[in-house]
């Protein structure tokens, strides 16, 4: 009985996860190493990977700062009524339930070129939709809950006694945060950062809608994979996908490491 279950588990993992990963690697090497290099060194591939990198940097920075602050307010703030806190707390999860395509649509509807706000901004020379700012906003929307949800349970667990003690002893809130709160939430934040980076690297639906997928301009790595597949250029798609998959596996290893460190505290 026991053997059967373990064997079945191995079979599911092999079929669903290991074989596909291997297939991506062998598929990208179908035309040899030079084929893989050609696929990766195309100007549009380099530009797409650069766009993905830029978005990762912006989104991770903004999401970390705002996510940690919001988590602190949702757990600690005495100036918010508990009811309002509960309501905001359940709203945090909403982006999980929203299809990425719908997330992108929301941004097009609010600040797209056809809307009043979008036209106003465009008049001022700021392009949001079909440009980098829109792509960053769309990814921020999708990754919003990740950081808050990682940090909140840690804050609840450590309680507020130490912080109160620090404040009573005369420390300013900034000082209290760095000296008392930060050391305990550090690993939760790092775990949240890894999750955010992984989600941002892989974001596809929302970015596709908002970016317009313009080659060498707003194309990201995932939307380039999509376009290559649509153009039946599967070997090239595999090359870019291999890079993305390698990053994901690396992030997964980081996650395991961060999880272990998180448990120590």
């Amino acid at each position, binding site marked *: 009985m026991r053997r059967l279950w*373990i064997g079945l588990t191995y079979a599911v993992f092999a079929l669903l996860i290991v074989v596909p990963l291997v297939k991506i690697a062998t598929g990208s090497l179908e035309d040899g190493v030079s084929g893989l290099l050609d696929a990766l060194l195309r100007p549009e591939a380099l530009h797409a990977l650069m766009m993905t990198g830029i978005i990762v940097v912006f989104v991770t920075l903004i999401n970390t700062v705002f996510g940690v602050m919001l988590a602190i307010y949702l757990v600690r703030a005495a100036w918010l009524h508990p009811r309002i806190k509960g309501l905001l707390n359940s709203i945090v999860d909403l982006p999980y339930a929203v299809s990425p*395509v719908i997330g992108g649509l929301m941004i097009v509807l*609010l600040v797209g070129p056809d809307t009043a706000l979008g036209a106003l901004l465009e008049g001022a020379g700021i392009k949001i939709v079909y440009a980098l700012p829109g792509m960053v906003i769309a990814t921020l*929307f999708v990754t919003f809950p990740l950081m808050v949800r990682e940090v909140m349970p840690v804050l609840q667990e450590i309680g507020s006694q130490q912080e109160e003690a620090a404040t009573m002893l005369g420390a300013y809130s900034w000082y209290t945060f760095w000296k008392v709160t930060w050391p305990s939430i550090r690993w939760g934040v790092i775990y949240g950062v890894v999750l955010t980076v992984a989600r941002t690297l892989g974001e596809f*639906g929302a970015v596709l809608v908002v970016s317009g997928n313009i080659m060498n301009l707003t194309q990201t790595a995932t939307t380039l994979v999509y376009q290559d*597949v649509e153009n039946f250029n599967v070997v090239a798609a595999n090359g870019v996908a291999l890079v993305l998959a390698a990053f994901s596996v690396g992030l997964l290893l980081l996650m395991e490491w961060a999880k272990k460190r998180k448990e120590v505290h």
Partner: protein
Amino acid sequence: MNIRLRSSWWSFGFRSAILLYFFLLVILPIFGIYVQSFSLGWGAFADSVADPIAWKAVLLTVRLAVLAALINVALGTMIGWVLIRYRFPGRRVLNSLVDLPFALPTAVGGLMILLLLGPNSWAGLAAEKLGFEIVFHEPAIVIAMVFVTFPFVIRGVQPLLEEMDASEEEAAYTMGASRPRTFFRVILPTMLPGIVSGGMLAFSRALAEFGAVVLVAGNIPGRTLVASVYIFGQIESDDTQAAAAVSVLLLTLSFLILWGINLVQGRRKRT
């Protein structure tokens, strides 16, 4: 006093900035999409949803997402159980691999399925000989959904099994209950909240899935066009009102599921 005053101004500014960010990024867009879908009145909303391609897409999505969630409930319950209860070589590696579908870009997941089961692959040819097709048909959509939602049930079940009091199980054995009986009467009820909330999460994620599905579905209107791809098509052809109407349908469904999950988890905490 001066420093106190300045710091309270600072914290007021900080609070407002964070709450404003939250409002602008999350609440306003969701509100905006509901407004947009009814911008031309109820009639236009009903027309957009009643369009045969639209409601067929929604029905297809719901049907396949239910199927994918059920498959994941079965697989996830088994794997969650095996990974917690048994000690065997490679257990820790498998346990870390569970999260891979979350870490992997969904478009890459779709490409994998296309490569493995596509028309030129070994599995694709075998299936063709047997007289059915996988890629660009419903099976591929279900496989894509199962892949993307794979971790939910496992991660829902594992903590419950870990927390479970061994004495309950031992008591059942001592009183002469058989293994299957113990499993169904003692262990399964403990796992149930995790299975239910994991299954619901998997369902709502499968409803929303776009990246993996768009690559493998073939997207034939009325047959393999799922709701999120339909919405994407409407946006591309500049019919944002129709896109918003179908979005509202999907969103409302997802919000109800999210609310249901909260209820299930809330009950768990109280007992």
